[in-house]
């Protein structure tokens, strides 16, 4: 986003663009009725589907399968509001276990690639060694590879070594698929840190390892945070990688897998489906709303995820 306007800054480094000096009120009020109505219509179109799901998740199965959710919105007092749907999906439905599994998968799958990428980005940017530009070029070139290319050969390896269905296996898979983007982004940030910074640290006797942990990492927090949110949402919402490498067995199934299996097996159990869907959306929505600034910043930069 910012890059588009300011070619001198890298997007993940640049702060969210400062709002242009605020227009005067009279100028703002100039938006025509047509514009306002159109904006309202689009907002409504973009909100109603989710709102419908939310409302249905608090209605009984009889109501949600016989009348539209909006009838409850118009007659809130005639509606039999209930929390049973949530109680039953979280209780016997196995959804709680899936929620825990999603956390087990997502947190390391976010931290591991960021760590590897930060080390690599620093190495590529500030250390001199044989094969440096070749290796960096290869990693960036891998941005073009859709993860579908990895499925068949990796599945064969996983089945051969028993990694299928293990958390370590999926951590590494998400790490591999996330790394090119992470290295690309963090390199863009770390390579433009001021050179004097390192020189004075080295004079004080720091090794590259301590310079990295004590200087580079703290300074890179904005870039790390942007990528972290991006990767967190990506992994949490991922379905394909989990389906192939983790599988549908309930010990390890993550939320998206569990939700999809409810769609498949109990697609007509509307009331359960709604609650389950909301449980799966809760954490990403909270992360997203709380850290929206960082997310927006990482968004354009993250637009090349393979």
């Amino acid at each position: 986003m910012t890059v588009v306007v300011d070619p001198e800054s890298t997007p993940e480094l640049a702060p969210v663009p400062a709002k242009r000096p605020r227009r005067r009120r009279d100028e703002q009020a100039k938006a025509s009725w047509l514009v306002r109505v159109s904006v309202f219509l689009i907002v409504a179109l973009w909100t109603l589907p989710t709102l419908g799901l939310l409302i249905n998740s608090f209605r009984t199965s009889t109501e949600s399968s016989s009348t539209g959710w909006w009838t409850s919105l118009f007659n809130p007092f005639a509606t039999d509001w209930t929390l049973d749907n949530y109680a039953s999906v979280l209780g016997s439905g196995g959804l709680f276990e899936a929620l825990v599994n999603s956390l087990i998968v997502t947190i390391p799958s976010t931290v591991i690639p960021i760590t590897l990428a930060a080390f690599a980005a620093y190495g590529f940017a500030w250390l001199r060694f044989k094969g440096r530009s070749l290796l960096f070029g290869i990693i960036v070139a891998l941005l073009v590879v859709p993860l579908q290319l990895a499925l068949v050969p990796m599945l064969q390896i996983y089945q051969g070594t028993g990694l299928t269905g293990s958390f370590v296996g999926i951590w590494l898979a998400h790490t591999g698929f996330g790394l090119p983007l992470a290295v690309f982004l963090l390199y863009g940030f770390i390579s433009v840190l001021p050179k004097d910074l390192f020189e004075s640290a080295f004079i004080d006797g720091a090794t590259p390892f301590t310079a990295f942990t004590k200087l580079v990492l703290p300074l890179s927090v904005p870039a790390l945070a942007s990528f972290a949110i991006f990767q967190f949402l990506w992994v949490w919402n991922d379905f394909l990688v989990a389906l192939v490498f983790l599988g549908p067995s309930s010990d390890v199934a993550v939320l998206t897998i569990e939700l999809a299996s409810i769609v498949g097996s109990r697609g007509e159990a509307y009331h359960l489906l709604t609650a389950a869907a909301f449980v799966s959306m809760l954490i990403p929505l909270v992360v997203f709303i709380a850290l929206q600034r960082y997310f927006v910043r990482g968004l354009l930069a993250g637009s090349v995820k393979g």
Partner: protein
Amino acid sequence: MTSNQPGFRVLRALVIAGVTFAALWFGLRFLSDPVAFAGMPANLSKLVQALIAVVLGVAGIWALFYAGNAIIEALPAKATEILRPYLFVLPAVAVVGLYLIYPTVGTVATSLTDVPEGESFFYNYSQAFTNPDVLLALRNNFIWLLIAPLVSVVIGLVFAGMVDKIRLESLAKSFVFMPLAISFVGAAVIWKFVYAWKPAGQPQIGILNAFWVWAGGFLVDLGVISEVEPIAWLQVIPVNTLALIAIMIWLQVGFAMVVLSAAIKGVPAELTEAAQIDGATERQIFVRITVPSIWGALLTVYTTIAIAVLKVFDLIFVTTGGNLDTSVVAVRQYQEMFRFRNFGQATTMAVILLVAVIPIMVVNIRNLRRQGVGA
């Protein structure tokens, strides 16, 4: 013995490495079978397991780097200097090599060599391009590619342009942006309710059919049409593909809008003000000045959505399973892999995707670099 003596450093490195590897080994053993390994009751073990998994994954990766560094610094100074950079870059290179380079080569090779005795290298490809199911999937990918990126960009652009002028701008944007945090599976569930269908005469529970029947009822009253039937949006060919594309657009517009909105705010005010003084209307300014100024952002958004669209899988897999003429290449690949166990065809599908994605990705990366992202 002081900390500078080589003996101390070697000892220290050995201890650190030993502890790290032992901790990782026990942790991983525990994770692979917590009940058997630690004799824990199954219900308690889930949360303990989660805690250990997270600590292990997060601390483990750092411990490995720390141990690696201790080992390298214990070596003679010259070896340290030579090896040190590889401590930083080789882990990433190794993981990428294993998860992307090796399988990409393997996929291309399998698609060429996993053929019946005596057939040529191109057997899988000629099979694919004469299989009506594959051709259908390709056609659908093409329809998706034609509609979804363009419509998303146009809606995102128009909304970004309009919302720039109103109060409550950031609130309005948040609502349109929100679907970005929702998974494809979640979106599929949300829209299953929007598209829900009940036979004519019963109350519709899906909002689209409710609106359709209601609006159609008006036209019937006016005598424009004779009757209105609710539509099973996800079952009727070819409406179902369009209904699925609409979900994708719903998910992607927020991305387009945010990127384009930031770009619009970056258009120098002098440009638009000068045009205003010259008597240009709002719309003229938008079309002639704003849009050309944000061309780079438009290209980024378009190519990014195009790539996402080419690889679309979850949405279709969860809603129609690729039946009823809705299949695409990625769904086809999954079916070849797991349903038919035909790895030759599965890898061929993957290669087709790669070939389709590469040119768009190249445009995307070059465009980003021109704007100063990355190296």
